[in-house]
């Protein structure tokens, strides 16, 4: 399934093909495992806003929430790993994978646990800077993209893999910017879904929604945070598929596999 040279649009096109094959049921796995982490992150931010400038006096409260969030993060990494494997299998075979998608190799998952957490650490450490967040997004994307290429348990090998595929910086940066824009669109869609649900309940069920209208409004901080978390959860399968396809295409160009496939397609036509 390597049809076009490595460009941002070809990566996005081919990741859409892969997602249409693996969405049911594998997208549900990544969404279900991401929900606890994203909502705990939202809870953390909510508590942070609540305590405001006195945050340094609430170390235990914030620390406990952060610890729960990081525990949920490990679960979300596993969900992402299963989905990435499903994408890789679908791209290789051209059909939806079966139960074998669950069998993520231990070395691949442990390597991803390391690199995925490294990306998260970079994100929190550089949250004040725009460039740092971009670097964290790129490292996180490459971590999931290269996950299954890890054959030996080694920190240096897994970092080298990321550095090797990090040479496609132009496409990686473009993908990150595309997904940053997609985040806003996803946010609007999630918020609109709540609005539509309210409107349908009002029109068809005649329900009294005066209380719900206050809860589902932009004035409710918790609703806004939950909507942001929901928007990112909805986008996550696309982000993972795009990175898996990018690494696959970059690797194919490096080894000449793309030329072999192209020649085979020419011979068959």
């Amino acid at each position: 399934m390597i049809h076009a040279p490595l460009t941002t649009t070809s990566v996005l096109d081919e990741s859409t093909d892969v997602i249409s094959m693996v969405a049911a049921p594998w997208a549900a796995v990544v969404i279900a495992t991401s929900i606890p982490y994203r909502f705990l992150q939202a809870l953390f931010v909510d508590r942070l806003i609540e305590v405001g400038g006195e945050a340094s006096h609430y170390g235990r409260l914030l620390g406990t929430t952060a610890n729960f969030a990081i525990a949920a993060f490990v679960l979300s990494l596993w969900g992402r790993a299963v989905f990435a494997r499903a994408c890789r299998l679908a791209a290789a075979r051209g059909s939806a994978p079966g139960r074998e998608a669950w069998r993520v190799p231990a070395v691949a998952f442990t390597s991803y646990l390391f690199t995925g957490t490294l990306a998260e650490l970079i994100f929190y450490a550089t949250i004040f800077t725009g460039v740092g967040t971009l670097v964290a997004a790129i490292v996180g994307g490459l971590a999931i993209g290269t996950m299954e290429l890890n054959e030996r348990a080694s920190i240096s090998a897994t970092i080298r893999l990321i550095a090797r595929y990090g040479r496609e910086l132009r496409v990686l940066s473009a993908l990150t910017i595309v997904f940053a824009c997609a985040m806003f669109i996803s946010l609007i869609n999630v918020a609109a879904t709540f609005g539509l649900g309210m409107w349908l309940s009002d029109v068809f069920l005649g329900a009294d929604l005066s209380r719900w209208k206050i809860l589902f409004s932009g004035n409710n901080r918790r609703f806004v945070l939950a909507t942001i978390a929901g928007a990112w959860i909805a986008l996550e399968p696309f982000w993972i598929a795009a990175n898996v396809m990018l690494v696959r295409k970059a690797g194919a160009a490096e080894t000449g596999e793309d030329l072999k496939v192209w020649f085979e397609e020419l011979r068959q036509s």
Partner: protein
Amino acid sequence: MACAKPLCQECATQWDGIWHCAKCLAAKRGASDVRSNFAGWLTLVIGSLILLYLSAQMMVWAGALLSGLF
């Protein structure tokens, strides 16, 4: 050669500048694999645990710093 058996050029293989017979070479490769793999697993798991701990700490630190600014 570790076993000190006399071998012809065709039966010996050079590794790191030293000639080995097939048996000695297999034992050497096996031993080095087990050792390096165990070390790799250990560093990877410990490294991941350290990073997870640091991430939780960094999350609180960055959050507290950010909320202090506003």
